[in-house]
């Protein structure tokens, strides 16, 4: 009696489970899935949990901008819906989520998937299935060089090597005999930077005399900075993420070391510079050179820019919990602008191929960029942003210094 009852329970459970899963939709992949007469469905992955979760706030900027566009007619009459899920920066998770978004949700394209490792992991699948992988959130140079192998993948961020090259060019112009020390994060970002910088100065005069790396799990970079100072370098390149960059600047001042310093724009937001000045004195930050492409919401000198006003307007209406002073939010909005630009150019009845075509023929003036920086792509140039404006930190603010440098030239 007990036995057949248990069998019955099992059978029912089996049927229920089976029914639930069978019912899950599954439609073949066509050339304009995700596009209906009223909406376009985009997919994305960002880390909302785990060690990289700070980058998850990018999504807030993206969603605010899409909401704004939707309220103003959408794209060719369609509203944009962005389904952005958490992959915890784990590529094993990213591949599963991307497959789910593509096959269950039937997204039209992927936008701003974040991270070098996650993007490398999903590249083969997306390209095999001809699904656009657009405006990815990483600066790894490799993504701009694989157009033949992976035609459906496109960067957004200026790649790390280009930015490092921009610094290199500036250094060559100012100090041909510079002895350079580099502190860098021990991952693809930092390593790309070192490669790019060395490439730019190779044979042109300056030399790299010492490099020191750190792990994201390190508490601080005191011993690295001391080792770099001891090398006798007169120039310092900081290829570090915010908290380590601030530490580098502060410790440099405390050691009484005053090299010409280049700082990656990832860590050049005003509130970080202020934190460094507070902890290390003016000597920590005065004279530091960075290269920027996107506006900085904490830089009072940029408050008057039309793009900044637009940004704050959009956030006040559509931003929700987003913190307007969070540079990631502004970055997200800038990227979203480019996505909408591409969608608009994809035509009244967009297909994945027409979207890719549009994305590879962009020539836009993005309101959220610094004046003079443009975004342009072509089938042979998959580095959308290769220009940055150098800025020098003087009396508490980054002031433009020199011209917009184009790493292409």
């Amino acid at each position, binding site marked *: 009696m007990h036995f057949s009852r248990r069998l019955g329970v099992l059978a029912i459970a089996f049927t229920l489970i089976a029914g639930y899963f069978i019912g899950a939709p599954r439609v073949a992949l066509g050339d304009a899935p995700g596009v209906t007469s009223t909406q376009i469905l985009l997919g994305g992955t960002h880390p909302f949990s785990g060690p990289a979760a700070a980058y*998850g706030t990018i999504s807030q900027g993206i969603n605010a901008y899409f909401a704004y566009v939707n309220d103003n007619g959408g794209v060719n009459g369609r509203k944009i819906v962005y389904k952005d899920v958490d992959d915890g920066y784990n*590529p094993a998770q990213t591949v599963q989520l991307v497959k789910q978004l593509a*096959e269950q949700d039937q997204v039209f394209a992927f936008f701003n998937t974040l*991270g*070098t490792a996650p993007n490398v*992991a999903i590249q083969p699948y997306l390209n095999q299935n001809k699904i656009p992988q657009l405006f990815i959130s990483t600066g790894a140079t490799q993504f701009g060089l694989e157009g033949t192998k992976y035609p459906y993948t496109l960067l957004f961020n200026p790649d790390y090597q280009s930015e490092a090259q921009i610094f290199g060019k500036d250094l060559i112009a100012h100090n041909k005999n510079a002895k350079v020390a580099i502190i860098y994060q*021990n991952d693809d970002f930092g390593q790309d930077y070192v490669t790019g910088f060395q490439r730019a100065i190779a044979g042109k005069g300056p030399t790299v005399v010492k490099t020191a790396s750190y792990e994201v799990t390190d508490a601080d970079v005191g011993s690295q900075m001391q080792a770099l100072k001891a090398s006798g370098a007169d120039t310092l390149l900081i290829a570090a993420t915010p908290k380590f960059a601030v530490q580098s600047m502060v410790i440099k001042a405390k050691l009484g070391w005053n090299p010409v310093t280049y700082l990656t724009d990832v860590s050049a937001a005003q509130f970080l510079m202020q934190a460094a000045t507070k902890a290390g004195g003016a000597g920590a930050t005065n004279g530091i050179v960075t290269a920027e492409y996107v506006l900085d919401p904490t830089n009072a000198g940029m408050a008057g820019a039309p793009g900044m006003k637009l940004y704050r307007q959009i956030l006040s209406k559509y931003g929700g919990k987003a913190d307007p002073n969070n540079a990631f939010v502004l970055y997200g909005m800038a990227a979203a602008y480019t996505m909408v630009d591409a969608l608009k150019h994809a035509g009244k009845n967009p297909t994945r191929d027409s979207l890719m075509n549009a994305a590879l023929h962009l020539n836009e003036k993005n309101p959220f960029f610094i004046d003079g920086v443009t975004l342009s792509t072509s089938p042979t140039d998959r580095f959308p942003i290769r220009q940055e404006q150098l800025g020098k930190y003087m009396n508490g603010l980054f002031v433009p210094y020199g011209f917009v440098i184009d790493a292409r030239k």
Partner: protein
Amino acid sequence: MNLQTRRLVPVIAAVVLFSVLPFMLPSFLTFQFAFAGAYACAILGLTVLTGSNGQISLGQGAFMAAGGYTLAILAHSAGWPPELAIPIAGVVAFVLGGVVGLIALRLTGAYLALATFALAVSVSPLIKRFGWITGGAQGVTLPFSRDSRMLYAETWGIAALLLLVTWFILRGRIGRSLRAIRDNEIAAASFGINPVPYKTFAFALSAAYAGIAGALVATATAYVSPDTFGLQLSLTLIIGVVIGGLDSLWGAVIGGLVVEFLPLAAQSINVAATSLVYGIALILVMILMPGGIAGALRTLSRR
């Protein structure tokens, strides 16, 4: 119908269900189930090590990394197909597990947990340091792809095989000795059971399972990087074995399914929800339901 056959029924039902599933499910779900199978293998290792033998290892992710990278290097540099590389990954992890197991003999309880925690955290820097072998922070892309059904078949097929092997091992003298050592090592020793070979073997075997699991994850993702096998993973595996049920083979299967599907389900509520749910579930299960889900089912089925 006697007791033996009655206990077989759920097993047969499960085998039937799992065999039929990939033909009924859409490809992306089959893909996710494949990952669940890989995690089940790793959790099964903890069922042996922690459940049956009482050694707490928070470093299972490190052995998964060893297996995953072994497969990646063999596939990438020597062109080996994954099916051949998976056993090698298991062997490499087995050896590493044996070494760690020998060291672990001197550590008990919370100290072992602490040391293995530190091991799990050390994996990523080590992988990056030996970048010329491991591809460093860039990771290694694998030059093959397998479709979802094939992956499902491989992961659950191997899981079934490992379950069978474990069942054999645990029901015999080895199992009894492992459990005796868990319950009271000194008493067991005085009965003539030498803890050294048993405890080391348990470590090595659980590491081998983890290595195989890591190789399966690498195969399914077709890519490995230091981010794939972080501390998070080791903690997740412990969560899986506890919630699934510590000293239970069913627990490993349930654990694998929980660990794979719970985060996906929790995301729709709130992204931070996953951690909160996991943490609270862990505490509640240990206090109220130490046998995990499998234990609860077992108790229910006896009514």
